[in-house]
């Protein structure tokens, strides 16, 4: 069920777009919905990030991945536990570009004995890298359809990506890698029992959706081609706010663009927000400098003043002595009269 429902949802989206395109609603699916989607994406994304940034971060969260800054003869791990801004920048760079914390993933196994064994588990890291980088290249290369004249990086990407010159139009390596990456990410969720147990429909849905987007794109490029000139006229029109659909474009294109719109609309409300969230992870973006800088909890009540032990003892010394609790400073001599007074009474 956890796999079936998101699968049906994606099939449903494809059917909606196909029927819409067949019914001649091309301007709805080609113009109105994409605009709506990009607005929801931007506004939703910004609201989410602003909402996150309203949460106070009262203290630094030192992670245990590396040695913190300590005595001079203990070597600090400056990337895993940085105490300066430059160290944090290095850690963030490695996290964002190389997914360093996924590289550390481990997996616990029980095998004959029974014995517990921890081993490294790099599947998510490797498949994630494959998927994210090829998706990035594909999105950048799509700018060839949205811009006229084109930016400088388009021919460079086309050369590098299609450099194997297999077939006509040449196969883009990013297309192969993204489909393989998605397939492997899906296999990881269904074949690793523990990962399968914690996977939810919200994990499968984006996988299926992006797989459908990539496969409709590949179909249009390699197998069921449609007139790309009309598509570019529409895409440039969308970017310059004069969208026109100049001729017949196949339903496959409307399915593709409707799925992309769905992804954009779904994005701000889903786990895909890790795109913004990675920049806001406290365990990654805070320097462990608690020993050099005083961090004040922003929700402290300003009426509560610090209460040191010395002043606490001053306040309760009599009771503490009476109860036999040891005190740093004995009661002043006049206090000794009190027991005597009591005896008299």
């Amino acid at each position, binding site marked *: 069920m956890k796999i079936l429902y998101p699968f049906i949802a994606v099939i449903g989206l494809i059917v909606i777009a196909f029927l819409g395109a067949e019914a001649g609603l091309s301007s709805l699916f080609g113009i109105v919905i994409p605009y709506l989607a*990009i607005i929801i*994406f*931007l506004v939703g*994304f*910004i609201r989410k*990030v*602003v909402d996150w*940034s*309203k*949460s*106070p*971060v009262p203290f630094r969260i030192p992670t245990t991945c590396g040695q913190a800054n300590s005595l001079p003869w203990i070597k600090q791990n400056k990337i895993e536990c940085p105490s300066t801004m430059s160290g944090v920048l290095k850690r963030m760079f490695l996290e964002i570009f190389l997914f360093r914390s996924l590289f550390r993933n481990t997996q616990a196994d029980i095998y004959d004995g029974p014995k517990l064994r921890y081993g490294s588990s790099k599947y998510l890291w490797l498949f994630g890298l494959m998927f994210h980088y090829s998706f990035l290249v594909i999105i950048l290369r799509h*700018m*060839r*359809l*949205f*811009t*006229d*004249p*084109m*930016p400088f990086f*388009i*021919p460079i990407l*086309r*050369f590098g990506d299609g450099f194997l*010159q297999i*077939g*006509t*139009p040449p196969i883009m390596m990013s297309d192969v890698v993204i489909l393989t990456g998605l397939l492997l990410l899906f296999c990881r969720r269904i074949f690793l029992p523990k990962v399968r147990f914690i996977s939810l429909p919200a994990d499968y849905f984006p996988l299926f959706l992006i797989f459908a987007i990539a496969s409709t794109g590949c179909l249009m490029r390699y197998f069921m*081609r*449609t*007139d*790309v*000139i009309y598509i*570019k*006229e529409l*895409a*440039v029109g969308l*970017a*310059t*706010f004069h969208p026109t659909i*100049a001729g*017949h474009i196949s339903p496959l294109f409307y399915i593709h663009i409707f799925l992309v719109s769905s992804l954009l609309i779904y994005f701000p409300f889903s786990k895909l927000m890790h795109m*913004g969230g990675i*920049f*806001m992870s406290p365990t990654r973006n805070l320097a462990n400098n608690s020993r050099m800088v005083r961090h004040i909890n*922003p929700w402290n009540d300003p009426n509560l003043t610090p209460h040191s032990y010395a002043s606490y003892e001053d306040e309760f010394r009599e009771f503490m002595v009476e109860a036999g609790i040891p005190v740093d400073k004995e009661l002043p001599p006049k206090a000794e009269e009190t027991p005597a007074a009591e005896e008299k009474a």
Partner: protein
Amino acid sequence: MYDKGKVITGLVIFVLIVTFPVWYNVRGAQHIPNPKILTKVKHCVKPLDYMRADHMKLLIDWRYEVVREGDRAKVTVDGVQYERSLVNGCMKCHVSEKKFCDQCHEYVDVNPYCWDCHIKPKETE
């Protein structure tokens, strides 16, 4: 909001990246490609719609059959014979690479490697 400066800077960069096509297109004038045939011929081996979407498939199939399988038979459509060749076939009517092929290819960043093997016909005019 905490760390206002950093969060807002980040969001501004994000919006600029997402809206890249919008502000990039403002810099230059957009044009729609206008491929010119330059000869008076009005017929082709396949209908216009097919050619607009799938001409590369036709060319690569011809290449395979002619060059790799050695089948040089001509193709007859509506009583007219065409040689299955880029330079001696297609470019008999679509004479100018610059005014025909490149118009759309440059528009959508397509760079076929025809001239790695073929000798480019001279552009007249």
